[in-house]
């Protein structure tokens, strides 16, 4: 029987150019087109609540892709994403609220400012890797959040700042669905950029640095340049995500960008699958929707444990940690790997191998 899910049945690529094609076959292109159409028409049949949730997923996915470029492609661990999100959020908050700049200018500026800050904190990567780099980025996290909460005259201190939604002409992105479109379009652009990045000289250099940095250097890859570049590109997307999130929630305050956020983003990348764009998106969806799923579990359990609702945040924390550990032990490849396995299963169906 002809398989409905998988049209291609082997690898018949004969040249490097063919192998590097963005869409291998026509059906693959159509598949992506259908997916994008579904994404764009979603607000017509999904409830307002779910559109809001998906907006959050899309924004997280942009940040997760950014982190994955750094951690998954280049192999540099960063525990400072939360603070970089904060840099993006605060940049746009200051530019739009204090200086009255348009959102459309402040959004790329937020990305650029975050890229510069990220690049600065990426400089230690010249001498550090692994554990030590993780601690350096952790220091970045602590120092940046401290500056944000103490620089009252610019950032409003612990009270935070209030933002408005972006506008075009007379139209304001006030409704959930309009903001959803904005985020989804930026997500699609991010995905296109990062997928293409992998096909370029820079992307291959990133992978080489990750796999064996000393060998990469011997082959003529400028390690310092590419390591800092990874920090810059990654921070740019994280900054964009931070700015989008700030305008969505319409508030920025220091505790929104604490170390827990950094851990959440790391978890998205890890649970999704290191070095995988699709994985970043799946991971972002998983981590963003985890609290939603837990709420329904808690609803069921309150019959037996009446005070569970008060413990919800603790329960969330517990399950979050458990999910990370279980994934690490049982599926280090992440959701992306699970997805590949499912695809593979259908490819050879009805035979098991």
């Amino acid at each position: 029987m002809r398989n409905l899910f998988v049209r291609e049945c082997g690898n018949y690529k004969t040249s490097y150019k063919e192998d590097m094609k963005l869409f291998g076959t026509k059906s693959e292109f159509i598949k992506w087109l259908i997916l994008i159409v579904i994404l764009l028409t979603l607000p017509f049949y999904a409830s307002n609540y779910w559109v809001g949730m998906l907006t959050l997923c899309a924004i997280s996915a942009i940040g997760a892709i950014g982190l994955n470029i750094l951690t998954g492609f280049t192999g540099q661990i960063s525990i400072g994403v939360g603070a970089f999100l904060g840099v993006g959020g605060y940049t746009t908050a200051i530019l739009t609220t204090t200086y009255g700049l348009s959102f459309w200018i402040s959004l790329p500026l937020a990305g650029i400012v975050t890229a510069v800050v990220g690049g600065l904190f990426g400089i230690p990567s010249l001498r550090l890797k692994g554990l030590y780099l993780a601690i350096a980025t952790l220091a970045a996290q602590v120092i940046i959040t401290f500056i944000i909460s103490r620089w009252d005259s610019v950032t409003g201190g612990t009270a935070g700042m209030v933002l408005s939604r972006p506008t075009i002409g007379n139209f304001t992105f006030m409704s959930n669905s309009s903001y959803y479109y904005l985020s989804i379009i930026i997500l699609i652009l991010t995905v296109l950029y990062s997928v293409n990045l992998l096909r370029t000289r820079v992307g291959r250099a990133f992978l080489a640095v990750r796999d064996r940095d000393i060998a990469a250097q011997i082959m003529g890859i400028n390690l310092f340049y590419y390591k800092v570049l990874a920090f810059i590109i990654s921070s740019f997307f994280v900054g964009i995500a931070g700015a989008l999130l700030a305008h969505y929630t319409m508030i920025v305050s220091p505790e929104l960008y604490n170390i827990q956020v950094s851990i959440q983003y790391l978890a998205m990348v890890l649970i999704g699958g290191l070095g995988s764009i699709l994985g970043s998106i799946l991971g972002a969806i998983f981590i963003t929707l985890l609290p939603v799923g837990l709420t329904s579990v808690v609803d069921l359990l309150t019959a037996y444990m009446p005070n569970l609702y008060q413990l919800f945040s603790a329960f969330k924390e517990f399950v979050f940690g458990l999910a990370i550990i279980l994934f690490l032990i049982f599926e280090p490849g992440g959701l992306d790997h699970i997805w590949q396995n499912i695809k593979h299963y259908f490819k050879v169906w009805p035979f098991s191998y």
Partner: protein
Amino acid sequence: MFFLQMLINGIVVGSIYGLVALGFVLIYRASGALNLANGEFVLFGPYICLVLMTALNVPFLVAFIGTLIISAILGLVVERLVIRQLQNAPTISVIMATLGLSSLLAGAVHIIWGHTTRTFPPVFPQTPLNLGGIIVTPVYLWSFIIVMILLIIFSLFFKFSKIGLAMRAVADDRQAALSMGMSVKFVLAVTWIIAAMVAGIGGILLGNINGVNPTMSAIGLTVLPVVILGGLDSVIGAIVGGFLIGIIQNLAGGYLDPLVGGGLKDVVPFIVVLLILMLKPHGLFGSRGIERV
């Protein structure tokens, strides 16, 4: 006088940092992993001790020993269920696993004991000592003494006991230790047990000083600068680093806080870390085995 007071406070807090840092160093030496859940290990100790003291009405010393035993079990369980599964995994997996572990343990503590601050029934005498104008609370003094005794015991343990020797051997070269017939698994388990016990003791001492609440686990992050400063694989480094960071923190808090509006205590150690990482990544006493790129 103010300076001396700050110095003394720094030394006392630093001694506890040194103790907690010892847990980091032990685990790093034996398994090359950094236990970012150490802060939550610290958190468990005082809660268990409190429960033993209030629910079972046992004296402090018995509760203390009971806490050590339970902490040891916790360390063993963590090693068996999580760390052993990730033995050959890349650095990021181990870092992430301990981060997940910290989230899980913190959640468990919140679920079991809630968020309220509890205080220890007075264990040490309450009246402050006045040493020529410098005021020292007995709790601080006792903590300092206990930490010193423990550090001496540990140093002797590493130097002279058979297990201590085995731990050093495994840390030095796992392959060689294995081929000499040592059980690396056993040594790793012992390491985690000792690290958890050390963290538990640190937690009890801290709990006596500040009261017990979930924010105590923040010490896990504060101590990271200590281990980096001292060198990730050096026991002496953990102790010296603890004192240095404790003193720097208190001096910065005392002199600079009024200038920036408070909160410097938590940040200064991390600024020190960035400097250390830039200038001397292996720390003051760490071995120079760091791979340079």
